[in-house]
């Protein structure tokens, strides 16, 4: 197991390297320059020399390979550099936002699982009945309704009904659970709906598929109670693809809350990302993308471990 983990972590390196190269190159094509923006964005009139001096200070005048090398050296030492906008360490900037985003992602995942498992199972077991149809509409609705619109509707609804909006300032849940939850439950609901839709569809289709398997017929032929057929024989097998979906979606939420954070005015990673992109804050964008990629890869690893835990074929190897 230790060796396996070590190997998996080693195989992450090329992927991360690929992400690093790709994002680095992509950003260098972006037109505009943070220095111009910084000095002129609000109407300032710096001289050409001033602009150039600032570029030199930020290292933007160096040839690309030098910039890249510098960044790579930083990456290896887990130093993501400094934001070109605030000149604060990128890691520090990200750390300040990650908690919120992570919590929304986790809450959305929990909400999704709580909704999707029963719904998906129900609609699989009553396949093609009206229950199935109704659930299907609800779930496809989850895929269709843009979460930013849903978020807007939630806020507008709260304002309309109570002249109240969720608190704006993030407090960690262990400091003030009530304030924390009353802020984050709404965005979690807005994205959790979509997530649960994706998951419920996967649960449904994999249960439908599993219920067609020979071993389900075997279980029935043994006279196993129907609830055990579903609970013991079908669900565990059906959970395998669902675990993948949960992992994937969770990982995507870390960077994918961009729009929702905008709507709910959350100080999360997504908003930081959009701000960094629009400001051409290259080091920051690179840092965030690397963090997202790491989360993605680590989540994949966890999914694989969960798979192994659920699936003895992986745990004990094939014949």
């Amino acid at each position, binding site marked *: 197991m230790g060796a396996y983990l070590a190997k998996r972590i080693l195989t992450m390196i*090329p*992927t991360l390297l*690929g*992400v690093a190269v*790709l*994002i680095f190159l*992509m*950003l260098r*094509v*972006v*037109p505009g320059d943070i220095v111009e923006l910084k000095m002129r964005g609000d109407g300032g009139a710096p001289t050409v020399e001033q602009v150039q001096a600032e570029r030199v200070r930020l290292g933007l005048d160096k040839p690309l390979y030098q910039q890249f090398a510098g960044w790579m050296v930083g990456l290896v030492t887990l130093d993501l550099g400094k934001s070109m906008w605030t000149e604060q360490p990128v890691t520090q900037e990200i750390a300040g936002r990650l908690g919120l985003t992570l919590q929304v992602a986790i809450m959305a995942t929990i909400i999704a699982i709580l909704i999707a498992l029963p719904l998906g199972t129900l609609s699989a077991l009553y396949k093609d009945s009206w229950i199935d149809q109704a659930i299907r509409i609800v779930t*496809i*609705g989850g*895929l*269709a*309704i*843009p979460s*930013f*619109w849903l978020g*807007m*509707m939630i*806020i*507008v609804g709260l*304002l*309309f009904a109570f002249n109240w909006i969720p608190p704006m300032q993030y407090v960690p849940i262990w400091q003030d659970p009530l304030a924390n939850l009353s802020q984050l439950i709404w965005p979690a609901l807005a994205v959790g709906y979509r997530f649960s839709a994706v998951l419920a569809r*996967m649960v449904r*289709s*994999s249960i439908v*598929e599993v219920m067609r398997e020979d071993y389900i017929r075997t279980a029935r032929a043994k006279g196993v109670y129907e609830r055990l057929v579903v609970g013991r024989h079908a669900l565990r097998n059906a959970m395998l*693809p669902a675990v993948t979906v949960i992992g994937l979606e969770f*990982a*995507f*939420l*870390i*960077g*994918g809350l*961009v*729009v929702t954070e*905008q709507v709910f005015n959350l100080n999360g990673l997504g908003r930081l*990302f*959009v701000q960094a*992109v*629009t400001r*051409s804050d290259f080091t920051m*964008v690179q840092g965030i*993308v690397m963090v*997202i*990629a790491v989360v*993605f*890869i680590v989540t994949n690893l966890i999914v694989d471990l969960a798979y192994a835990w659920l699936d003895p074929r992986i745990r004990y190897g094939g014949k």
Partner: protein
Amino acid sequence: MTLAIPQVPVRRLNGLLAFAKAQPVGAACLGFISALILASVFADWIVPNDPFTLDFGALLMPPSWQYPFGTDNMGRCVFSRVVYGARTALVIGILSSLVGSVVGGLVGVVQGYFGGRFDFYVSRFIDVLLSFPIIVLAVVVVAMLGKRVVGGVDLNLVVAIAIPIVPKVARVVRSAALSIREMPYIDAARAAGFTHQRIVLKHMVPNVFAPFIIMFTAFVAQAILLEASLSFLGLGVTEPTPAWGLMLAGNAADFYREAPWMIIFPGLAISLSVFAFNLFGDALRDHLDPRFKL
């Protein structure tokens, strides 16, 4: 995403009828989509008002005969803009999904066919692309490419939406292609001494068509949603082009009391059309290949 080998029979002429019979809901969605397409093609004749005309005398008017969905804060007809918005959504949605699926499909087929080292390296690259959340990738690409409007369509936006689609399609099509590659009829083609090009184009490509077409419809829905999200973020379509996401952007929500129609109708338009494309994609999948999972 997993995929079983699609043994999809070709249904020709009466395919549509068979589809309608087997999948009435899907057919209804197809009807809705067709209506949407017609509306966007004939938008000029359908709309009661010019979607670009500002009328400061008619700001935030409630729905009426003249303005079926009311007017926005610039005095423009919301209904007309929703109808024209369908054009934007469909053109960008279909175009980017098409570009993404075709490129991804080709990459996937070629990968699946040749396998080996080529497949390995392309797969790693695809892994890299897949480790970006869609919206993140799209945001960066939008920022990277800027805008290039040709014939009213921002080609770079299309590319930005297509790029995240490419690796997804490539991955699914690759796995389909891998299993098709193992099919004896491909062996037969190899044993027949056909060229790689012939085998890929004549024997592989038509057989990955089912997953391809299913993914294509599903991604149209995603592309519409993504376009709306980007426009909402101010990174997509620009004013005064009528686009649903754009109609919700900026301070549209501020008018929730005075002019709720400003946010309700574009939101519904997005939801309904994405809904229709998804449901249609589902039905198509059930019809073409029930084992295919997206």
